[in-house]
């Protein structure tokens, strides 16, 4: 019996708003409502990184939210996938040149699926999630590190300590 097959059947989602204008957030909520009803795929919006498989990020990464994003990312157990939801999350969008913006999510943590659109439509989000599930099935249980803001997890006494992975900014 291959357990990895079941990853596809119960994707639990953590939704993180890194600095969005709320347009994409509303569309994500629309996915959960009766019209699109993503729960029929077994999907739950958990709101808790420790129990979720998919990190759904909306909005460009602001300097304030950067550390939080990495912290939450480090708290998700592998295997996990990251979906950048909307133009801003993918590239920074219209906010890209602003003083307080780092850019797209992929500047901070590795992203698996980009969902374009301003705001992205629920159909697109569902399509992105389905694509992400395909990737999730292939993933291993290796710890993936964020691009900046990380300290390697400590290994001692046979245990991995990832408590301070979202540490300081790497120059």
């Amino acid at each position, binding site marked *: 019996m291959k357990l990895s097959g079941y990853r596809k059947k119960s994707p639990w989602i953590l939704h993180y708003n890194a600095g969005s204008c709320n347009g994409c957030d509303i569309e994500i909520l629309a996915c959960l409502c009766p019209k699109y009803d993503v729960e029929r795929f077994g999907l739950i919006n958990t709101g808790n990184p420790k129990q979720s498989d998919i990190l759904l990020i909306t909005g460009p990464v602001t300097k304030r939210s950067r*550390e939080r994003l990495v912290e939450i990312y480090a708290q998700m157990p592998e295997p996990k996938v990251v979906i950048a939801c909307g133009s801003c999350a993918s590239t920074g969008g219209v906010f890209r040149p602003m003083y307080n913006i780092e850019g797209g999510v992929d500047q901070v943590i590795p992203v698996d699926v980009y969902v374009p659109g301003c705001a992205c439509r629920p159909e697109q989000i569902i399509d992105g999630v389905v694509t992400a599930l395909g990737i999730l099935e292939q993933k291993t249980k290796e710890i993936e590190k964020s691009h900046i803001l990380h300290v390697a997890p400590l290994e001692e006494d046979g245990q991995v300590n990832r408590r*301070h992975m979202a540490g300081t900014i790497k120059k």
Partner: protein
Amino acid sequence: MNQLVLVLFILPLLVSPLLLVLPRKARTFATVTTVSILSLISVYLYFRADETISIMLPGIVNTIIAGADVILLLYFGYIAIQRKSLLVGIMSVLQLGGVLFLLTKMPHHEANQILVDKLSLFMFLLINIVSGVIAAFAIEYIEEENCSEYRKRFFLSVIMWFIGVMNLIVSADNLEYFFLFFELTTLASYLLISFRKDEESVHNALTALWMNQIGGIAILGAIFMAVFTPGYGEITFSSLIAKAPTVGVLLPFALLAVAALIKGAQMPFSKWLLGAMVAPTPVSALLHSSTMVKIAPFVILRISPAIHNTMLAQVIIGLTAFVFLVAAISALAQDTFKRILAFSTISLLGLMCLMAAIGSEVAVVAALLLIIFHGLSKCMLFLNAGIIERIFHWKKASDMDKLGEVGPFTSLIVAVGFMSLLLPPFGAFVGKWFSLETIGAGLGNSQVAGALVISAIAIGGAVMSLLYFKVMGLIIARSGEKDKVQFESMPILFSSSMYILLALIFAGIISLPFMMGGFFAPVASDVTGLAVNVQWSKLTMMIGEAQLPIIPLFLAFLFLPLTMIIAMFVRFKGADRAKEYMCGEKVEYRLSSFYFNTEKVTPYFIAIGIIFFIGIVTVAII
């Protein structure tokens, strides 16, 4: 046998003045040896003494006792003048008048003044072992107290003397003797509570004094009634109880019950026990666990054959059920660790007295179980409060949210202590279980009252568990950095007393099924005068008519404290360590808990308590 019993009385009283003069090393040695000897004697007596030991004292002792009475009351009068306390003064004058009057009128019978039955032996066990641990603990504790060398010695000396008096009071059969010892415990509590000599201590000590003096007056009233009611005549517990069914006058017993309930700090009189918190912690431990307050269930157990199934017993049941509930609720409003413990003591004392007042075989067994296990657990918790005070310098529960990290051993002991009070096979659970069994079977003609009592017990128990969870929640929190537990180091007298109590508690649980037949049942049958049958069928134990699936019960509940301890040492090596979820934020925070505000309703609680107390006396007169 008789000599051994006398050793129990005389040894602490002899060692007590010695402690005033000995240097530190010798003092430690003397205390530890004395309490060990006392404990051994009490264990030996319990398992060897088959029949009631009665000791006839020479006539001169009667005179000495009478003289001591007068001197003691004069000393109380002196305290009243010295501290300018009107209440204490009035009480002293009233008592002195009563004593002098009774001394002239009292008929002198050749009676056995000292009567050591199974119940007394049972109390010896509790008093000597638990107080012994406390006395040893106090040596270390008092060293760091900010006071003169003489005061430190004085403190230890009073504790030792207190143990002797407690041994005497549980074996006094003559009410006149009982009165003196009762007043002596009052004096001991006054001296210990006012030990720190600041304004608050003295004030609280005076409160304790006058409240307990009301108890003394009640005993004098009981003696008066016993002497002047035709039919009673002799003023010993044994003859009063034997003659009660034929004479039918319950007033002496009602007054004795009032005295006992005051000692047990039941509702309107709960103030003195709460005020006792200002004293050094070993005092609180001593007053709460093994001595002083345990006089209440003891006396009620003594008189329970006489008041069993009467209206008087029902009023006492009502009062104690009420106190059980209300004290538990009041505890939820407290933040000081010792005050929380104090309220829970009052509450559980209510339950013990309730069980004793019901007086059926099962209820008496429950009361005995509660007395001994509550003594052990509370002693452990209070000594821990002392350790927290001395080593970590915390007094409030809300300050203790780092205790799980800096003092994991202390935090573990507190958690196990609370668990042992909260859940079976002891503590509130047994009481609830047994009372449900007995009250459920029918309270005779007062069924509505029975339903109310059951509800009070059910709610009170639930409130109590909430309370313990609340406090425990603050003290066991650890962050992920402290995965590997390293116990803190503490002075040997501190840690050894903890280990002894912990071992006693666990030994108690493990041997409970065997002790039920061999240990508790004989005492209960001696108290009730009925045969208490303990039988086994499959996994069920039958006590009288009640059925208890005791083996699954005790297996299941050994589980809980054990789980707490094992959890300290388990290590999952394969798993990653992650940070606590805080929405990704990095902020400093403190943990706190919730509080219920009971200030508004407290006056009503007290008023209801007073009504119950008046009820006890009126019912007996009718």
